[in-house]
């Protein structure tokens, strides 16, 4: 019964996101960038493949994060603001079902979006290299990691919107995205610092989402393989971290007085 409702909410979230034309603008932008990749590749001979993959995957990653943050927050905060939520919660829908349904709807939207953008990148690759190589398969792994990154970002933006205003949620989510990409440096810094500062730095360094390990774009652009161990670790990390953020969101949302 619950899973049915979660599924309905997820599908409705997906439908709302897709019909909201904001999504299309960003996709168009990313397509334009992939076109630019081909042009840039022509300036730098012998590294067209490198440039297409670097530019294409970076665009997918960054735009996806922007979509995840802004549409994610828009969808949840907007519902609370405009009270579409009242009629949903007046039904036998539990608050946790609502949050989880939103999460899957959002991530589903991003996965579909990524698939379209990825097709664009592969087409650009075909155009510049005229055929696929075996090493292009690793690009799929990089894409998978980018999708994992989206799961974590969506979970975070849902967490923040469960208690914060739309603008602050966007700011927090974006800040954590940036910090999360510097997670390696943070952990190194924490190891070297002592005393209370070191303890604080360690706590923060280990709590921020570790996006750094999910970025293998440069690696696959050079055709280098990605270790199976990293694939496993990133998958587990994304699952655990998302579950953590979503649980936090549910706990807060369950207690929230809706205005």
């Amino acid at each position, binding site marked *: 019964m619950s899973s049915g409702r979660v599924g309905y909410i997820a599908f409705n979230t997906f*439908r709302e996101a897709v019909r909201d034309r904001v999504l299309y603008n960003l996709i168009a932008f990313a397509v334009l960038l992939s076109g630019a990749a081909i042009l840039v590749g022509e300036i730098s001979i012998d590294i067209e493949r490198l440039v297409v993959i670097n530019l294409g995957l970076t665009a997918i990653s960054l735009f996806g994060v922007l979509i995840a943050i802004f549409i994610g927050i828009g969808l949840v905060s907007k519902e609370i603001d405009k009270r579409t939520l*009242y009629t*949903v919660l007046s039904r036998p829908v539990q608050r946790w079902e609502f949050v989880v349904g939103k999460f899957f709807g959002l991530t589903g939207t991003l996965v579909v979006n990524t698939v379209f953008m990825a097709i664009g990148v592969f087409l650009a690759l075909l155009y510049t290299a005229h055929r696929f190589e075996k090493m292009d398969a690793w690009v799929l792994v990089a894409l998978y990691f980018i999708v994992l990154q989206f799961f974590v970002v969506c979970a975070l933006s849902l967490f923040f919107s469960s208690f914060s205003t739309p603008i602050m949620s966007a700011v927090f989510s974006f800040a954590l995205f940036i910090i999360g990409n510097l997670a390696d440096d943070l952990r190194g810094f924490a190891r070297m610092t002592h005393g209370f500062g070191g303890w604080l730095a360690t706590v923060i360094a280990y709590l921020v989402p570790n996006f750094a390990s999910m970025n293998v774009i440069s690696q696959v652009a050079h055709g280098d393989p990605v270790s199976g161990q990293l694939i496993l670790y990133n998958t587990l990390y994304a699952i655990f971290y998302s579950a953590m953020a979503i649980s936090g969101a549910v706990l807060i949302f369950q207690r929230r007085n809706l205005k």
Partner: protein
Amino acid sequence: MSAIEILDLEKSYQVGFWRKREKVGLRPLRLTIEEGEVFGFLGPNGAGKTTTLKLLMGLVFPTAGSARILGKSMDDPQVRSQVGFLPEQPYFYDHLTARELLNYYGQLSGIPAKGRSSRVDQMLTRVGLTDSAEVQLRKFSKGMLQRVGLAQAILHDPKLVFLDEPMSGLDPMGRREVRELIQQLHHEGKTVFFSTHILSDAEALCDRVAVINQGELRGVGAVAELTSQAEGRVEIIFSATKMPPALTQLGAESRLRGDIASAVLPEAQQEAALEILRRERLRLISLTPVRKSLEEYYVQNLQPTENRKGVGV
């Protein structure tokens, strides 16, 4: 079984950033609504009507107290499959069509797939939106949104329906349709609890009303009783092109419109007035006792009990 039992339900807010002050949304409320009733919840804006409804719907959590809905605790999620809710000035998913929205809500309410689509069609017909069923909600007027709101509130055939200002934003035709709908629901045996500040609607529709102001319940009573108290005056309506001076001398409040005149005077002078009409050969149209209006009851009860003069609860 009572439809709704509100047991000392209370809500207060913490206002302010540094030094938190308490703001009272609802003082301990004790109220019972019987099954099959049409109950009106009256009060000015900000009185606590919406707060009460949100508490009962579980959108807001009480500071103290509880309530039972259809015999179950208000926290019980199963309760909500028997309850329909129309919030004030509703707003729905912009990009869905009316049919898609109702279908979605039907899914969430657990209406099985088999009968769902015909049920949605029925609802659309009932609220008069069949022609706009495939139009996206962002193109709907306020009145149309209100109708969608009603449709989603009764879609799953609930036993109890909560309506928050159901007439808001409707033109006279729309209000009439909503009145008819509420009467239909009443005939179907449903309990209807609605809040409003339009007294004529309450007077026409409700079995009982409660008056609330500043978060406090000020009075509860059956409409019939409250308005049956005759004041000891009668209203005489008759054909005349000008008011007979003899009537005015009796001390009547008179009004003349075209060739219809009306005069209101104490019951004791009823016979004297009729005698004047006979003498002047004026045709009598009607003679009715003047009832106390709900409006007066309302205005009186807005004041806290200590400050009241005149009739009590």
